[in-house]
Structure formats: structure tokens, C-alpha cells
């Protein structure tokens, strides 16, 4: 998978004089800048999202915004592993489901608060990823994908068969919503601020980890494992760390999902959804910070737009995917660059 440079673009263009400019900047402070350019973009975009509940004509649109933000967490966490780490997991919906069922069962069967369920879901999925990651991450490429697919299949069987705990194919009922001192977050409007905040925190965590030695190690391992190991990077441990991190984030998304819907059923966490997440990572722009946001937007919005077409929905969806992926291999996040190249190419052409 492609790993786009993190430090190109805006940084390069803001340092036109190269080293001299940098020297000037470096005398300004002794530590790296607290805020990266993407911090500002992230903040701006999430502030715009904050207006949705006020601007939305109905609560249905707010429910879509909640779904979108949960999808952002799912696709961005998969992108971390797949886009930056080159490890294509077809088990992401499984981790999403594990988080949902852990948090949901703790609520419906044990009676624990969703505030306990959320960290518990994150820890449980992270722990599960740690346990299966050790053997599974020894596999490469397609074999890793197949193994994670198997893991997803096992989980779906468990969601269906452990009827006592999960409610089986009928789904898990009786999940309590998040509540703050008796104030139940049981409407889309009330849930929105929580989902908004958690998704922002997840995106910040991803941004920060990418701009650290851990993120560099991940991309180094993805690009050239031999070269990375020669620099002292433990490639197996690096992959495992991000497998666990990515799963933990999917667990967070699962917990949000189950307490918002107050319900979970196995088909939400099926293998076909795992495949769609992988497609959305690629469609948005694999290995780019903003790709998953675009991917989540499509994943949330397009099925709504195609509701009227019923049978044609999936076909049109598939056709759209094909066109985008063939025309823009770097995904939607790569469209501006692709257009720039195309435009530049046209201008450079001799007349």
C-alpha cells in the first residue's frame, strides 16, 4: 500500500528557502511545534461538524452524522494499519462487533454503565488483537488478510451462537444508553456531542502517533522491512502495536454504536462489512490522513442517496468504486494531486 509522505506539501511549500528558513524557525523554540497543519484542519472540520445539529432540518440527519463519525473511527483506524502499515486486515468489522458486544453485554446483562463499557470494549478488543496478532501477523499480504477474515468469521459465529450472552441472531436487546447523572443520551441530538468528541480524540491520537517515532517505524516497516530492522526497529512488535491500537479504536466505535442503537445484531459485523471498510480506506485514500474522512462520508451518504434505487444500489455503488479506483489510484484524497499533475502535464505539453 502507498505511504504518502507526512512532511511534504504544506511544510515543503512553507519552507521555500530550505535550510535557511528552517534555521530561523528553529531559533524560535526548543521543542517541535505543538500544532501541526493537520491540527488546524481537523479542528476546523470538526467545528463545522458541530453546526450539524443546528443546521439539520430533522433528527434523521443528526443520526447520519453520528453514524458518519463512528465510520470515521472505523475507517481511520483501519487506515492506520492498512494504509500506513501495509497490513490489510479483513477482520475490522469483527473487532467493531467485539467492542459492541463487550460493551453491550456489560450493560444489558451485568448492568454496568456505558462509561465503564467504553474503556472495557477498547481494552477487550485490544487484548484480543494482542492474542491473535502474535500468530496472525507472522503472515504476510494475502495470507494475513485471509487469517483475519477467518477471525471475523469465528466472531460472527460466536455472536450468533452464544445466545445466552448475545441474544443470537435476534440481536442483543436492553442495552442502556450513555447517561450523565440521570440525563440519558438516548436521542440522536443528545448523543451527537459525545460521538463528536470521541471521534475527534481518536483522530488526534492517530495524527499524533503518525508524527512520532512509532508512526515512522510503522511506515518504515511497511515500505522496507529489511531497511527498518537495520535501524533497530522491531518490525514484528511495531506491527503488533498498531494491530492492537487499530483494534482498540474499532472497539471504541463498537461501544459508541451499541449504546446509541441500544441494540446490536451479528450481521452488522459481518465479513462483507469488513471488506467494505477496506474498500472505503482505498476509496478515500489509503495512507493519507484525510482519506478515511472521505471514505466514511461515502460509506455513510451514498447508500442514503441510492435508497430509491433498491436493487440498483449495490450495483451503482460498485460501479462508482471501480471508476474512482481506476481513475484515481490514490483515492479521493489523491484527486487534487492527480488533477494538478494532469493540469501540469497539459501545460507542459509542447504546442
Amino acid at each position, binding site marked *: 500500500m*502507498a*505511504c*504518502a*509522505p*507526512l*512532511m*511534504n506539501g504544506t*511544510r*515543503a511549500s512553507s*519552507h521555500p528557502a*530550505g*535550510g535557511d528558513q*528552517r534555521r530561523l524557525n*528553529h531559533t524560535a*523554540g*526548543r*521543542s*517541535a*511545534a*505543538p500544532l501541526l497543519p493537520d491540527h488546524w484542519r481537523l479542528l476546523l472540520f470538526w467545528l463545522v461538524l458541530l453546526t450539524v445539529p443546528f443546521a439539520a432540518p430533522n433528527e434523521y440527519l443528526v443520526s447520519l452524522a453520528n453514524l458518519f463519525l463512528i465510520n470515521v473511527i472505523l475507517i481511520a483506524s483501519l487506515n492506520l494499519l492498512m494504509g500506513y502499515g501495509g497490513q490489510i486486515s479483513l477482520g475490522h468489522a469483527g473487532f467493531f462487533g467485539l467492542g459492541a458486544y463487550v460493551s453491550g453485554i456489560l450493560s444489558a446483562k451485568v448492568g454496568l454503565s456505558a462509561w465503564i463499557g467504553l474503556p472495557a470494549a477498547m481494552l477487550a478488543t485490544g487484548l484480543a488483537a494482542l492474542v491473535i496478532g502474535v500468530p496472525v501477523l507472522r503472515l504476510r499480504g494475502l495470507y494475513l488478510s485471509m487469517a483475519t477474515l477467518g477471525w471475523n468469521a469465528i466472531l460472527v459465529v460466536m455472536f450468533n451462537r452464544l445466545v445466552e450472552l448475545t441474544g443470537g441472531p435476534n440481536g442483543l436487546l436492553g442495552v442502556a444508553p450513555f447517561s450523565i447523572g440521570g440525563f440519558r443520551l438516548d436521542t440522536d441530538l443528545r448523543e451527537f456531542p459525545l460521538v463528536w468528541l470521541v471521534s475527534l480524540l481518536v483522530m488526534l*491520537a492517530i495524527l*499524533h*502517533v503518525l*508524527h*512520532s*517515532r*512509532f508512526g*515512522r*517505524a510503522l*511506515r*518504515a516497516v511497511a*515500505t*522496507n522491512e*529489511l*531497511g*527498518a*530492522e*537495520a*535501524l*533497530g*526497529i*522491531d*518490525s514484528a512488535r511495531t506491527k503488533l*502495536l498498531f494491530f492492537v491500537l487499530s483494534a482498540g479504536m474499532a472497539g471504541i466505535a463498537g461501544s459508541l454504536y451499541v449504546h446509541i442503537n441500544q441494540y446490536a445484531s451479528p450481521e452488522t459485523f459481518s465479513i462483507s462489512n469488513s471488506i467494505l471498510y477496506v474498500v472505503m480506506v482505498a476509496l478515500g485514500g489509503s495512507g493519507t490522513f484525510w482519506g478515511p474522512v472521505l471514505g466514511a462520508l461515502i460509506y455513510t451518504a451514498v447508500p442514503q442517496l441510492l435508497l430509491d434505487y433498491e436493487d440498483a444500489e449495490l450495483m451503482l455503488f460498485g460501479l462508482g468504486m471501480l471508476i474512482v479506483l481506476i481513475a484515481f489510484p490514490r483515492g479521493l484524497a489523491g484527486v487534487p494531486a492527480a488533477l494538478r499533475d494532469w493540469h501540469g502535464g497539459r501545460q507542459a505539453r509542447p504546442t
Partner: protein
Amino acid sequence: MSAALLKIEALNCYFQGLRAVADLGFTVAVGEIKAVIGPNGAGKSTLFNMIAGVTRPTSGHIFFDGDRIDTLPTFARARLGIARTFQNLQIFREMTVLENVVAGCHLRGHAGFTRAILRDRTFRTEERALEEASFELLERFNLVDKAYLPAGALSYGEMKVLELARALAGEPRLLLLDEPTAGLPRAEAEHIEGVVRDLNEQGMTVLLVEHNMRMVMSLSHDILVLNNGVRIAEGSGDEISRHPDVLTAYLGATDDA
């Protein structure tokens, strides 16, 4: 002679019965530049890969600074202070030039995962220090202007230099250079030669595989000659260039030549 930084003892490597390195032993002293030369297929690359941890020896021991390292994985050897460059480049093409070198600083980073996620002050101070150090290396190797380009956009010669800069970023104690000037025009090869000499004058120990004999002769304190996986000579440049077995191996010279 000062203490041995690298010590090879009775090292053997067979590939399905094919002898790549046989019963090889030598030491590299602290502060020394040692060159390993020999015709193609002499076992130089296998030797290098065994020291770096890419190939397991069939038998024998490798000691680094007194500790046995031949069972350690590559990254663990790097952590002890062994850095290397590759004959066929292994740079991170899709990362920027700067990121390649900062990645080379991996071992110098200590801020934990939580600090990285929170991006706290301790983390940012360290990050700045690593970036500063990387820029210094880029300046030294005339790559500052290209710091924000993807490494894959560099010329072959620049990539060679970048790989050397990246290897140095981890502040190693032993530098393994696998044909550092192969395929470079003379001026660039001389630049690298100068860099290696400067490094050595500052105390760096170097083990060098190189075909450029002029460079080997001018840089090395000691030269090891391999042929068919066996040591055929070891000594100073003068001794080597007069050694009959070396002449035979290289020139196919016979008594009447």
C-alpha cells in the same frame, strides 16, 4: 592494538551444502577501517549478512564488544550499535528524505507511546532534537535542499548518500558499508570516501566491502581477502597487493605471468 570491537570466530555458512564462508576468523579493532575484498562470489555479502543478522551462520560465533551476537535478530544488533548500508538500496522511497533520516534516529528516541499520543512537551522536545540532528546530517551530506522530497525522487547517488546518513543517524559504534561507492561517478565516490575518512578520524570503526580498489587502498588500515569463502590473505594494502594468492585470485596470474 586497541580492543576488538568485532570478533569473528570459526564462522561457517553453508547453503544446502554449498560453502559460502568457511572457517573464517578475524577481528576489527576499535577505530579501525577494515576492508573485505574478493572476487564475486567470494562470500563477502554472506559475511556481511551474518554480521548484520540477516543470515544465520551454520556454525561459529560473532562477538560485538565482547557480547555474543550471532543469535540476535537484526534489530537487536542495531540496538547494540551496528549500523549498515546495503549494496542494493533499502531506503524508504515513499517517505521524505528528512523522514528517512529521522527514522534512522529511531534508537535515540525514548519518549513513550503515551507521550507520543498526547504529544506532550517531553515528546516534542525530543522530536525537535531528532529533527535537528537529522538536518545536521542532511547538511553534512548536501541533501538539505531535498529534505522534503520523497526519497524515491533522489538520484541513485543521492540515495546512496541518504542511506549512509540514515545509518549514521542512530549514532552507531560499528558501521558496515556494503559497496558504498558502487555505481557512483568518481566525484561522488570521492565525496563518500572523504566522509568515511572523516568519520573514522572521529573514532568510527568501519567494516567495508568495496570493489573500488583505489578507495580500499587509500582508506583501509587492514584488508581481508576472501576467495571461495576462505581467507586467502590479510594485511596492509602493500602486503596484499604483493601477495601471490591475491594476484592469482584476482588476475588469474600464474608463475609465468
